[in-house]
């Protein structure tokens, strides 16, 4: 309760939360409001926005409803962003915990693998992965997670290294607890807060990466995505700039919203920690 109040006490956090709420509503009502296929032709091609109120944002090169595409695109962006970030955090936390807790050879091997992933530019990695396996929503999520798990892994490992020296970990060993149970039940939950603080940055990056992949034509072809919309509009950028601008603005607002809300959460928990 007081934590929520603290979160809402900064204007940035409120703005971020409002943007995210709006986005979530868009994603949720998309199938109700625009029940048909958003990729179906709805009217004449290249109709500018605010002309016909049955197509408020106009139509694209093929005559598809831009507003419907925008709403359905929000679904894709949110789904991919959240799923990829969750996967990256999960992989990172598990790898970091194992490396930090086991130490020795396990640590050495896992951290060198992490290094290898970190030295390859993450977008190239995602690009290569999707072009080999083929574009589908699951593959895009996996590709983004694959390039984003190293940060959480390093943070988790550093945290675990300090926690594993605490008395309560020794206490768990003394009562005969299995090392894996100690790692994942005693150590990991206490190592999570700083790892979770990375989540807003990872979600924002994941949404951008997904858009970039779609822009290059490597998104799921059966789904509307904002990146794909921008790519579509690119060919008619001079005659119909709104086709790129509308999804572009949506993308910027989304990333901003995720970031502001994430900062708000970190800020409110930081205050909490310094008080206790």
């Amino acid at each position, binding site marked *: 309760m007081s934590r929520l109040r603290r979160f809402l006490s900064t204007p940035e956090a409120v703005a971020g939360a409002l943007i995210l709420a709006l986005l979530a509503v868009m994603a949720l009502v998309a199938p109700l409001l625009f029940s048909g296929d958003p990729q179906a032709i709805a009217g004449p091609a290249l109709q500018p926005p605010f002309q016909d109120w049955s197509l408020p944002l106009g139509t694209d090169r093929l005559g598809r409803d831009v507003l419907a595409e925008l709403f359905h695109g929000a679904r894709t962006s949110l789904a991919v962003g959240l799923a990829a970030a969750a996967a990256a955090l999960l992989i990172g936390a598990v790898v970091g915990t194992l490396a930090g807790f086991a130490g020795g050879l396990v640590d050495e091997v896992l951290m060198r693998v992490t290094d290898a992933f970190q030295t390859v530019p993450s977008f190239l990695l995602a690009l290569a992965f999707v072009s080999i396996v083929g574009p589908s929503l699951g593959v895009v999520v996996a590709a983004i997670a694959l390039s984003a798990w190293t940060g959480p892994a390093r943070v988790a490992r550093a945290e675990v290294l300090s926690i594993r020296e605490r008395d309560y970990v020794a206490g768990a060993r*003394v009562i005969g607890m299995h090392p894996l149970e100690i790692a994942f039940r005693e150590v990991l939950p206490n190592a999570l807060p700083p790892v979770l603080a990375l989540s807003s940055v990872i979600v924002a990056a994941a949404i951008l990466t997904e858009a970039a992949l779609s822009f290059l034509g490597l998104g799921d072809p059966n789904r509307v995505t904002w990146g794909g919309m921008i790519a579509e509009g690119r060919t008619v950028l001079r005659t119909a700039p709104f086709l790129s601008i509308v999804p572009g603005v949506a993308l910027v607002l989304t990333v901003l919203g995720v970031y502001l809300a994430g900062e708000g959460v970190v800020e409110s928990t930081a205050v909490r920690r310094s008080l206790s």
Partner: protein
Amino acid sequence: MSVLAVSSLTKRYRRGSKPFAAVDDVSFEINPAETLALAGPSGSGKSTIARLVLRLIEPDAGRIAFEGADFLALSGAALRARRARLQMVFQDPLAAFNPRATVARVLDDPLRIHNIATRAERPRRIAALLERVGLDAGLAARAIHEISGGQRQRVAIARAIATRPSLIVLDEAVSALDVSVRGQILELLLDLQRQERIAYLFISHDLGVIRAVAHRVVILDAGRIAESGDARAVIADPQSAIGKALVAATPRLTRSRP
């Protein structure tokens, strides 16, 4: 037969580039239902010995026989199973528990790990353990950070006795407690020792406390045994330099006896 027999135990660390022995050729035995105290200034190796005996760290040399068997030969599941008989209570009762734990979970773990009680029986066993250490069974639902320091140390003792050990290592277990609480905890430990025949390895820097509860004392200095013997005799008339210094430094209440 002794519960614990430690011989020629040695543990070396590196300080900068030069190695030094934190524990240097230390040998002692503890008999059933006996309290052996380890005393000495900070850095004398007391806590290192505790951690070696519990296999939290591995010695560089020496032997540890626990209940007649080679304790250092055990590993993996066999070691974890054996740990039921050899427990520990830490100095800071808050740091000794997972900050997210509840009292019930802390006591549930040893019962579950060592198959001491079925899932259905455990709540009753937990209540019995709490009552055994003088706590209300209703405390089980509370979080560890909600209860007082003295209550926490009682929970720590309850956890240590849950697996019916023959030896408990008490590492400065009463040093962080208020004096009034300290007396009660010491009484509880002595009561448990008498009824369950538990042996204690009692680590403390406080000779007054050691004299009150220990049968024998080993005084350490820089990782080596300086002297050992009957606790009251050694404290009344220490022979080693460090023993004399410890006795001289202990604050005294000089008052005419009523």
